[in-house]
């Protein structure tokens, strides 16, 4: 293990004395930024798609919207996120002549991608809510959209919160591919440390640890949130 101690020493030198930790912190920040922005955009898009999916389809407009949503979900679930990132960054952006920073690209693509997954989660959540809730809201004169947003979706979110937490964890882990389009995440930071010390064992080990701790921390937060949302179920 003497070898390992030496490796640790080298890692510490680059990590601390040569300022590698600033990159790690930036990487951590970017990872969290992308995952949080991705989840927020994903929930918004997912909710809209799910509401369209459960909307009664007597008229033409909802049917067309539903068709568009199906194509959307099909594309984003049917292709790897790396492909989507590359397509967005190297095809879509040049086509529109836009110079968007790669971090923002990642946020948007992860949001679009998770929107497709969240829509299915949300749809099952909405269907799990008693239809009487929607009827009662409609009978009071609230529109379909308002009834959904104020009554049905909050209850749906409560039902699907554990699954949404899972989706967030998946997002955190998936962010490790953003270096494909040049965004600096945890992988980039530790790769930098490794290249500068000619030693990869410890950096990647620490990287794995950080991911695990991060995910466990989020799992704990989800549990806390779930408990506070269950308030309306408890007798008090």
């Amino acid at each position, binding site marked *: 293990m003497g070898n390992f101690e030496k490796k640790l020493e080298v890692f510490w030198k680059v990590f601390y004395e040569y300022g590698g930790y600033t990159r790690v912190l930036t990487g951590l920040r970017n990872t969290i930024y992308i995952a949080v922005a991705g989840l927020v955009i994903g929930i918004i898009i997912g909710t809209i798609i799910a509401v369209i999916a459960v909307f009664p389809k007597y008229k033409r407009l909802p049917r067309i919207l539903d068709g568009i949503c199906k194509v959307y979900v099909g594309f984003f679930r049917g292709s790897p996120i790396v492909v989507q990132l590359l397509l967005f960054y190297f095809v879509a952006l040049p086509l529109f002549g836009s110079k968007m920073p790669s971090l923002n690209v990642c946020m948007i693509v992860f949001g679009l991608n998770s929107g497709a997954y969240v829509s299915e989660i949300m749809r099952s959540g909405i269907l799990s809510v008693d239809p009487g*809730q929607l009827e*009662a809201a*409609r*009978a*009071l*004169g*609230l529109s379909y959209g308002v009834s959904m947003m104020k*009554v049905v979706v909050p209850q749906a979110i409560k039902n699907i919160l554990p699954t949404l937490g899972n989706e967030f964890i998946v997002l955190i882990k998936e962010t490790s591919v953003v270096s494909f389009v040049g965004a600096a995440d945890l992988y980039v930071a530790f790769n930098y440390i490794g290249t500068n010390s000619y030693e990869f064992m410890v950096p990647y080990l620490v990287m794995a640890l950080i991911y695990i701790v991060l995910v466990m921390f989020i799992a704990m937060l989800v549990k806390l949130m779930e408990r506070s949302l269950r308030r309306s179920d408890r*007798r008090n």
Partner: protein
Amino acid sequence: MIDVIDLKKQYGSLEVLRGITNTIREGEKVAVIGPSGSGKSTFLRCLNCLEDPTSGQIIFEGVDIADMKVDINIHRRHMGMVFQQFNLFNNKTVIENIMLAPVHIKTHDLRVKKIKNFFIKIRNLFAKNKKELYVINTTKTKIREEARENALRLLRRIGLEDKANVYPSTLSGGQKQRIAIIRALAMNPKVMLFDEPTSALDPEMVGEVLDLIKQVADEGMTMVIVTHEMGFAREVATRVLFMDEGRIVEENTPEEIFNNPQHPRTKEFLSKVL
């Protein structure tokens, strides 16, 4: 007040309502009775278009609300509805349940007025004939305050003021149903529709709910009540409709229907339930 003209409802090939024509006048309390599967609940739910009629007209205050082009939400504000399963919003406290619709609708109207005023102001900058602005004499906070006061007043009336800030899951069935009734009343409806309001209640809670409905009836509210409580129908209703197989078979005053039924189906039904 409500004119129902040749109302029909089909689910696929199943005819639930086979042409109902009736008029509900202001101040009337109409009880709808009949065997299960006779279409009485569907009839009630068609009155505020929770079920879209297959054909026929429902004229409410001069507007055919069965027409899909009509904005049904505006008309539903004036029709309170009480469900068999209470349907209190589980994610909201009791007082939020009562306040939700009045607050939302009034703030929505306020917002629409403000936006319209904004465009009128822009228009007035250029046009010669100045248009008048909409009068805005309320604010969001004021709307909330008024709705809260009204909700508390209604809760006080049914003696559940102390339950204002609890969630519905902590209440008994009778309490839930009474809150559902005042939630509908908070919109100041012109007509109240009751869909078997006591069928899902424990027997000892039926009384408190019926008492409240009776009170509301005595205040002159127009009501349509689908019910299995024959005693209640006899006591409160001014007119009873007996429905069977999607048609109104017989209608009359409660005394006539219960003491002297004409149609054989009515006789048969009443002999079973009374």
